[in-house]
């Protein structure tokens, strides 16, 4: 794509995104807020899993934790929700750090098992401690802004999402990002090359947990309620579907995936009680047929269509053959 075309498309897209609450209507603004929430959660999960290779099934537990922590301090101590969100973020970072320490000693499947066990245990605790959390009824929260308008919420979550993406982008394209990828590719090799594994893994864990918690705290103050249902495996499968649909281990993939899947989910809602099974089926088929996500699919298509690339490939092969013939 030409640079000028890129700039024009970028401009149009940002105008579209910035003006969304004014033309989209209440319902679609609500969907947009949810998808921006998912952009934060999925992109941070992508840093942990797609870049650092630390498989985790506890990510939605952290967003739920942020929601509960923020709501509890806001309702019990009358702290302003904005400050509550910061506190929720800190709680998420600390617990994420602790879970990271626990997971340091394990690799591969053990690691994912421990995170799954943590998620299940966390949800059970939320359900059982009804004196604090009101159990499965959910905890009523304070709304961030007075009034019913969704516009301020939209801009708040937009700022959070863009801020989060900038942070993630800077990290991914910095030496830290490359080190995390080295750990993903080969832990032992990275360690031999002098990478302090523990420090990097804990950094990834606490940063991504903090981001998820902040997003969760925002959502709690937007919806006005936080329930243990946020931390179910079904909720986690949403995050997973979004990351995979976009393309795990790419920066822009999960962002596209989050928006696409959230809108897809809204359209599937008309199927009522079949909704979640259809959604599950879509995820299964997607994983089965395009495990690299939409980005990889697009790349494959352009690869097979692009004539010039085939020609250059053919030329390369010819050249190597000729060299080989000469040597022999």
């Amino acid at each position, binding site marked *: 794509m030409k640079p000028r075309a890129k700039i024009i498309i970028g401009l149009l897209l940002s105008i579209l995104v910035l003006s969304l609450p004014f033309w989209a209507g209440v319902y679609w603004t609500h969907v947009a807020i949810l998808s921006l929430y998912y952009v934060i959660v999925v992109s941070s999960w992508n840093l942990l899993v797609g870049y650092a*290779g630390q*498989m985790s*099934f506890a990510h939605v537990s952290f967003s739920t934790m942020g929601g509960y922590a923020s709501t509890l301090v806001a309702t019990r101590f009358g702290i302003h929700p904005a400050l509550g969100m910061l506190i929720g973020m800190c709680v998420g970072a600390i617990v994420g750090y602790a879970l990271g320490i*626990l997971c340091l*000693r*394990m690799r*591969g*499947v*053990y690691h*994912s*098992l*421990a995170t*799954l*066990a*943590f998620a*299940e*245990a966390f949800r*059970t*605790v939320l359900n*059982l401690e009804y004196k604090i959390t009101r159990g499965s009824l959910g905890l009523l929260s304070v709304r961030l802004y007075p009034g019913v308008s969704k516009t301020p919420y939209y801009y708040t979550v937009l700022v959070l999402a863009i801020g989060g993406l900038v942070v993630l982008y800077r990290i991914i394209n910095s030496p830290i990002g490359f080190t995390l990828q080295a750990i993903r590719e080969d832990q032992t090799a990275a360690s031999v090359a002098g990478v302090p594994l523990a420090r990097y893994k804990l950094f990834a864990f606490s940063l991504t947990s903090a981001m998820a918690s902040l997003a969760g705290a925002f959502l709690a103050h937007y919806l006005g309620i936080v329930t243990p249902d946020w931390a179910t*495996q*079904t909720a*986690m*499968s949403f995050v*997973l*579907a979004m990351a*995979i649909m976009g393309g795990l281990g790419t920066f822009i993939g999960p962002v596209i995936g989050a928006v696409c899947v959230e809108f897809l989910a809204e359209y599937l809602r008309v199927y009522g*009680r*079949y909704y*979640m*099974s259809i*959604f*599950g*089926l879509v*995820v*299964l088929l997607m*994983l*089965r047929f395009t*495990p*690299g996500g939409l980005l990889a699919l697009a790349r494959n298509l352009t690869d097979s269509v692009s004539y010039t690339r085939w020609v250059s490939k053919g030329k390369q092969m010819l050249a190597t053959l000729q060299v080989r013939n000469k040597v022999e």
Partner: protein
Amino acid sequence: MPKSLELFLSYVINGLIIGNIYGLMALGLTLILGVMKIVNFAHGEFYMLGGYAAYICSIKLGLGPVAGILGAIVTVFFIGLFVERALLTPFYSGRLERPSDYALLMTFSLSVFLMNVVIPIFGPYQKASAPLAEGSVNLGIVSVGATRVIASLVAILLMALLLLLLSKTRLGIALRAIAQDRDAAAICGIDVNRMNPVAFGIGTAMAAAAGALLAPTFLVYPASGSLAASKANAILVLGGMGSIKGAIIGALLLGVLESLGVLFLSPGYRDVYGFLVIVLVLLIKPTGLFGGQEF
């Protein structure tokens, strides 16, 4: 015998009885892990499917409890076979960079799909399959529901059958060879790729058997699998991944620990003890009780 000791022993016996059924779950999970090198996150859902299969065979078709259990094992074996062939085998064809990560994600998504797909089919309410026996059995100190005792005995029988299969038959030896070294097994002429579905089928059938055995007492509902799965996962960590001996002993241990946790700590938190076990094992002995031992 003092009253408190009696109480203690009765909880231990209850734990052992339930532990045998956990063992059935964990053994299936261990077999899949050993051969395919992935943790089957949908294991609990195959347990749930087993419960539903038993419900259909024994109540809807009226064939009785034994047919229910056999029906569950056979049906879920074939479902497992199909699922592995259709969804997991393709990852190992060499196109993907980290196939086992994607296989993990696949079993996780499969678990969510199965959990949700049974809601419109069977409804959200709890179902019970036909009980294996009426009344209760007096075990000296404690009297336990007869269904549970028989379920526990059947579980022991099935575990023994699986161990026999693994140690005596050609198929079992092939499976163990793959678990030890996939490439070496392939060089010796074992068709490795055809063994994956077999291992997955047998493993899920074990989960189904556990589900069918517990369906009369613990009931079956769409989310019933996730609890059972979290226990099987805890056993896997406790016993040391991939060790068969570890899976059985770990299962009995977890059954007893849970039971004692209910007695001494709090009954509500029964299902969190599994996570506590994982945490403790990781802190004290990360390889598990029998980690690193032969499959």
